[in-house]
């Protein structure tokens, strides 16, 4: 069903027949995508479509019950140092007693291993990352004093400090101010121009067309994948967000937990 991008020798991320389940109930079915480097890819779909699930599976945080994921042609779990993940901002406790700098330095931990301390180089990288998100003045500040937009920038800086080739971001634009949103999108475009690939879970249709090169349209299964202008079509969007439930979601419904598959279209 999916529209493949032009076949390329260089594929940064490839999934084949990827099926992921929560508590044995599948929430993603048979996803096939292969993504070329240097792209800004939006992952879109209604609530409960499996957007976050997809990137968590790519990160190896969820175990697929079928199919496989390859990053740079290797199994995903062996490539952790080349992948940076930005979780949803609300998933952590912002009263945690750490400073902005502490959090950004955590981006280096994957490279440091369990016992090594961050050195000057790590600090420089972290500082550089903070500078890119305009957060240098806040480096020593405790994270509970930050606004939503600033929190998101801290997370972004942490991902930048990882110096990865593939970035996976879970709803980075939720609850941030306009200034932060434009800072983030500028930064993502800069990353892309450096040949990095960025996958962003996004839920705002109007901005999606401007922000992304290509889109993954999800609703439990892959509705479409391709350049924005090809995917952003009434018929496809209707299929992803449309009011009627697909057979798949009815099955999912029948197996329980309706809240996760609330498919009532939401703008």
């Amino acid at each position, binding site marked *: 069903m999916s529209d493949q991008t032009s076949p390329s020798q260089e594929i940064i991320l490839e999934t084949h027949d990827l099926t992921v389940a929560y508590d044995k109930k599948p929430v993603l079915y048979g996803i096939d995508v292969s993504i070329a480097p240097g792209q800004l890819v939006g992952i879109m779909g209604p609530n409960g479509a499996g957007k976050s699930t997809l990137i*968590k599976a790519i*990160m*190896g*945080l969820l175990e697929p019950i079928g199919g496989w994921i390859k990053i740079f042609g290797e199994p995903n779990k062996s490539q*952790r*140092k080349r*992948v940076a*993940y930005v*979780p949803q901002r609300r*998933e*952590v*406790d912002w009263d*945690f*007693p*750490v*400073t902005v700098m*502490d*959090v950004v330095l*955590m*981006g280096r*931990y*994957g490279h*440091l291993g*369990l*016992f090594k*301390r*961050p050195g000057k180089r790590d600090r420089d990288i972290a500082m550089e990352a903070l500078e890119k998100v305009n957060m240098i003045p806040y480096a020593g500040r*405790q994270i*509970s004093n930050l606004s939503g937009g600033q929190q998101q920038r801290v997370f972004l800086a*942490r991902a930048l400090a*990882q110096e990865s080739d593939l970035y996976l971001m879970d709803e980075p634009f939720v609850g941030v101010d306009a200034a932060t949103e434009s800072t983030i999108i500028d930064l993502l475009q800069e990353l892309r121009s450096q040949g990095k690939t960025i996958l962003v879970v996004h839920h705002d249709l109007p901005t999606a067309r401007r922000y992304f090169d290509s889109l993954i349209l999800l609703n439990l299964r892959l509705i479409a994948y391709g350049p924005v202008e090809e995917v952003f079509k009434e018929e496809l969007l209707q299929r992803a967000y449309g009011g009627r439930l697909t057979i798949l979601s009815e099955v999912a419904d029948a197996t329980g937990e309706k809240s996760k598959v609330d498919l009532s279209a939401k703008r």
Partner: protein
Amino acid sequence: MTRVLRYGQPFLILLILAFVLPSEAHAAKISELVEVDLGDQFFRFFSLQDAAIRHILLGCLFMGINFGLLGSFVVVRRMALVGDTLSHAVLPGVAIGFLFTMSKEPWAIMLGATLAGLLGAATVSWIQRSTKLKQDAALGMVLASFFAVGICLIKMIERIPSVNKSGLDHFFYGQAAALGRSDLWMMGGTAVLSTVIVILLYRPLLATSFDQVFARSIGLPERLLFHLLMFLLALATVVALQAVGALMVSAMLITPATTAFLLTKRMHLMLILATGLAIAAGMLGAFLSFVGEGLVSHALPTGPSMALSAGGFFLLVFLFSPHHGMVFRYRRRLSQTRQITVENTLKAIYRTMESDKFQEEGISVRRLAGDARETFEETMKRLRLLVRDGLATFATTRGEVIYLTPDGLQHASRVVRNHRLWELYLTNEADYDADHVHADAEKVEHILGEDQVMELERYLDYPEQDPHGKRIPSLRDTQRLPLRDLAVKEKEVDS
């Protein structure tokens, strides 16, 4: 004579009773034989001459390290109840350890208790994973049922013949008095283990505690580190049972760490502070319990004394810490309120002087009271604040007249200036109507900083009049000038 008899009667009865009542024992418990007073106990405690006191202080040191380090992680991970559950869940392990060896072998009891604690923790996460129950429900269930099993097993053991099992109940409440070398070895070993692990794995522990999903995404063994933390927690709980008892362990684990959390916003400082507080609370508790013996015949139990000391520290910090302390917050609010009163009074005097075109230096208190629609006394009360701050003086000769000092006039000009600039800003830039701006300016005038005022002035292109046509005191006015200059300027505005 008769009087003596009348008063003698009760003595007689007592004398008879003394013969009838059971005779005095010629055995006693030690606390009746050796009397102590407060001073003795006090010096004795600090002389460290007793092994008992050295043991308990050493125990406090080791326990404090365990509780401070592990408690901090427990608190920032928001799993305080987990510590509580763990301390209750170890009890069946104590009993099973005993059943295995049929004696109170420390290693068997420790092993059993640690395993039971971990089993309890595992049961919690198992219940959470396999049902839709929230953590608090799972913790509550495990806590109660493990504790119940523990009590049942211990009661069962009490019925087993011929083994000396007495003292198992001490694991509930602890018996600090019986703290011995083997207990200290176990505590010390655990403290060293905790310290080494926390220092070596500080960063991974920090990252996994802050953001589990991210930590896993960069390949940190998040589950393993969590289990390691739980294992250390179980060990720390078990070795502390003898000293403070299962019921007080969680208090010692959570309270110092929570106190430290209020005091600092850096994890490594929190670890150090929590450790210090836990050690101090333990030692203070031991001290109170020991010295308290000189005050009351029945000693304060050691475990609860320690927990109470920890609670006392928390209360102190909660009340008096510089940033979050209730007392400071209250005083800050109080002083803010006072400041606002002072400034409003200054402004009122300025306005009255202004309406006189600054011809009179002294202002009648009655007039001020009348303008403010207050009683004379209320106004006097406010004016006395100014006098106390050196902003005004009362004229004694003419009575009931207030004079602003140069400082007072300067301060008054500044407040009026702030007020009027803000009004102007609101009308010009925010499209407020001139009659809507006063209330807002009333609040803002007190909080505008020097820099903001200057910026405001620049922004408004150095205005001279507010929206109501009143003169805005200039920057120079606010920097001391004789009253007659104001009078001259007032005329200029008028003309």
